[in-house]
């Protein structure tokens, strides 16, 4: 599988995602600097990592969504290349319009970093095929703005179309309908707040996140 990880100024989970992709897929991803305007044509996956792109200035993900490389990501997504946005990457995807809704400040106001219980709501996609539908897993979150918000019609549509992929099984950040991760209509763009790359092997305390990458490999 050929993958790339986008690096914005202030990204700080880029290495973690790259290491995880290398370990699980056997091939190191290309690291793509935010100033690039084109992406390699044969990519299977684009990873948008966690962190604080552009220092979270303006709004989390807002500046990154307007950086040169994101035009190329939007085009690649339209071609069907899979895009995985984790944490700040999810925020970037919503700001870029690749996914609906927005990630607001956590309801509890504070930054929250801990393992949380998630339910895999949908395994009929390239990102979660290796999970059982309804399976409960533990993956850590680490965010200040993870409170998923969208209007009722959008939320109903996401639910109706089976696009809520991960749902919190405990109170975390006040997200509407406990949404932790959603997918686009075409099924090739996933955004989620939890960090599967931090739960890729048991040395990290849990390996529940590994199957996201194994699913991609098998797809």
């Amino acid at each position, binding site marked *: 599988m050929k993958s790339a990880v986008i690096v914005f*100024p*202030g990204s*700080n*989970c880029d*290495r*973690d995602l790259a*290491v*995880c992709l290398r370990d699980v897929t056997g091939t190191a991803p290309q690291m793509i600097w935010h100033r690039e305007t084109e992406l390699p044509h044969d990519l299977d996956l684009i990873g948008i990592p*966690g*962190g*604080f792109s*552009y*220092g*979270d*200035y303006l709004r989390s993900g807002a500046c990154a969504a307007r950086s040169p490389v994101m035009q190329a990501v939007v085009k690649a997504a339209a071609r069907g290349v899979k895009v995985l946005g984790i944490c700040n990457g999810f925020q970037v995807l919503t700001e870029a319009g690749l996914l609906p809704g927005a990630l607001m400040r956590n309801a509890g106001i*504070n*930054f*929250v*970093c*801990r393992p949380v219980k998630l339910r895999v709501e949908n395994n009929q996609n390239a990102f979660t095929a290796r999970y059982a539908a309804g399976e409960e897993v533990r993956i*850590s979150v*680490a965010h*200040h703005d993870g409170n998923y918000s969208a209007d009722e019609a959008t939320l109903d549509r996401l639910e109706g179309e089976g696009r809520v992929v991960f749902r919190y099984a405990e109170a975390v950040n006040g997200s509407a309908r406990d949404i932790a991760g959603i997918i686009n209509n075409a099924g090739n763009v996933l955004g989620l707040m939890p*960090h599967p*790359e*931090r739960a*890729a092997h048991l*040395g*990290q*305390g849990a390996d529940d996140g590994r199957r996201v990458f194994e699913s991609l490999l098998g797809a």
Partner: protein
Amino acid sequence: MTNPAASTSAITPEIIADHGLSEEEYARVLRALGREPNLTELGIFSVMWSEHCSYKSSRIHLAKLPTQAPHVICGPGENAGVIDIGDGQAAIFKMESHNHPSYIEPYQGAATGVGGILRDVFTMGARPVANMNALRFGSPDHPKMKHLISGVVRGIGGYGNCVGVPTVGGETNFDPAYDGNILVNAMTVGVADTDRIFYCAAAGIGNPVVYVGSKTGRDGIHGATMASADFAEDADAKRPTVQVGDPFTEKLLIEACLELMASDAIVAIQDMGAAGLTSSSVEMASKGGVGIELNMNSVPQRERGMTPYEMMLSESQERMLMVLKPGRESEAEAIFLKWELDFAVIGHITDTEHLVLKWHGETVADIPLGPLGDDAPKYDRPALSRDAYKAWALVRPLDPATIPESTDIAADLLKLMASPDLASRRWIWEQYDHMVGADTVAPPGGDAAVVRVHGTEKALAITTDCTPRYCYADPYEGGKQAVAEAYRNLCAVGATPLAITNCLNFGNPQRPEIMAQFVGCIEGMADACRALDFPVVSGNVSLYNESKATGGGSAILPTPAIGGVGLLKDWRKAATCEFKASGEAIILIGGQDKGHLGQSLWLREVMGRKDGSAPPVHLTDERRTGKFIRNQAAQGSVTAVHDVSDGGVAVALAEMALAGDMGLYWPESLRLDHPGEELKFLFGEDQGRYLVTTVDAQSLLSDAETAGLRAVVLGQTGGDALHIGAHAIPLATLRAAHEGFFPKLMDGEL
């Protein structure tokens, strides 16, 4: 503070006093220059001779600390200490205080404390891999305390989370002595290749001096001077001296510096911390035995009309000073521009051994470097004798007859587990990204944090420790204990302790009783470091931690915070404290059970008394027990390890049970050196002890006997309650007590 419009104003006694210089020190300035200084020069002397930068009251005592060992690559004197961790790699670390700014403006004070210590570490070529902190707050019910706690924790998280360095642990204590002067000590550990370590000594006459990072503004002017005086009633009026941090810029600065450091373009590099451009330029030139000339018009400035005085004293954050090899400027500039950071050649190295500042073509300062650095004032301040100190400290001896024979042990334990000093710190560390980097093996909450050395089997163990109430009761024993506890916490995760950094927080050194605390703690630390082969490789001194704001000029408790670093050859062998499986034997190893209740948390929290001596530390036993524990962990013959410290055996057991969500049975009569004294055994804070669990008690007991260590089987794991003698304390009750304190405090329910 007088804010000069120009650098040529006449120097009046008021201006000298405003700059925190004594008459005697000003006379010394006159001798050093052979003339009157101008205002810029006076400002430079003022910050360089501040306690914060010159260590003038502490230097002669710091020299007592052992700093050498075969694994020490670089001891105190550089930006941070460097130790060898094998395979051509080094760990680089330091701890530093940001106390005064954090009291005045807790979010920015704590955040810039983290930023400053990170720079000390990556300046030397290391990628920062872990942050730790040691926090001391006042009484939880003090009207200002919730604001301070919340601000400090958010500030540490806000900065560390954004730069992407995990905050993996620390310690937090409460005592009314910190009501008007909280302590925020931040520690960073980084990893570098031993052949890629960068130092600050400038070299090469004519080499360019380069400024990188953020622009210079008017923030933080005189921060170092502020940090070198007691708080008067007007602490709030000092707010403009607090710097404002930008962790995003710091992240860019880390990446840009490390990228440039991969080449050989850098001769020397120094971060601009306290006293900013002044101390960085003076230190680089002094260390290199050269001179330095800076053109102030070239300094990147955030505001218009800044004077050399302001530029030299600004403590704007996220800035570095470098000396480059000649001709390498454009290569370096390209890297910094890529990361969208300022880059400016602002001067060059000279052979004058003077600091010379030019502005609009004129010389606006010309100071010989000697008097600013090595020949700065140094004081041997008077200290009370040990006996005179004891009399002053008013610590009453603990009369055994005044301790009740029995009490409700279950109620006492619940009270202790819910008390501010022992309650779960989850509310704090869940606000820190403690996992970024994906190398955190042991999250906060254990004896020491364990972080993998990226891409290797190795791991670093890191801990911060100090028990200020012991240090107050007996500075010498307290200093020893702080080092010994750091040692113990590293051994408890299976790591070999290698070296320490320290952050010495004390009151006003011009008071003989405070100097007695300082000297006593240093001497205790020195003896412990020597006996444990655990040298000091870096450190920081923070004096004048006193506040008149709370009425009375009260000093903090003496707080020599220790940051210990150890090495695990295989991160998979890291020991953790939680009970793993039921039916395992629980064994107490090492030390002696004298039932030392003096200065114990039980005595303070349950009886409301602060009496008695600090528990003594037996250093040879400490070392032997630590080695035994490490070996057992490495062999995998223990399933859990936890050191016995605050709150004694009962609290340690409760912590192991909560962490593993598994109870214990201790049905036998307590095995005591002094039968019948259940209370003393459970809550005594005798030193040098560990609790372990094992599936093979016989072989562990026999190993302990061979090693000459005492080992006592206390009971076994299992169930969902602590069954201690006739008591049964449900884990759920214990957990509610333990987890409740911080959320309730911060929600205003306490």
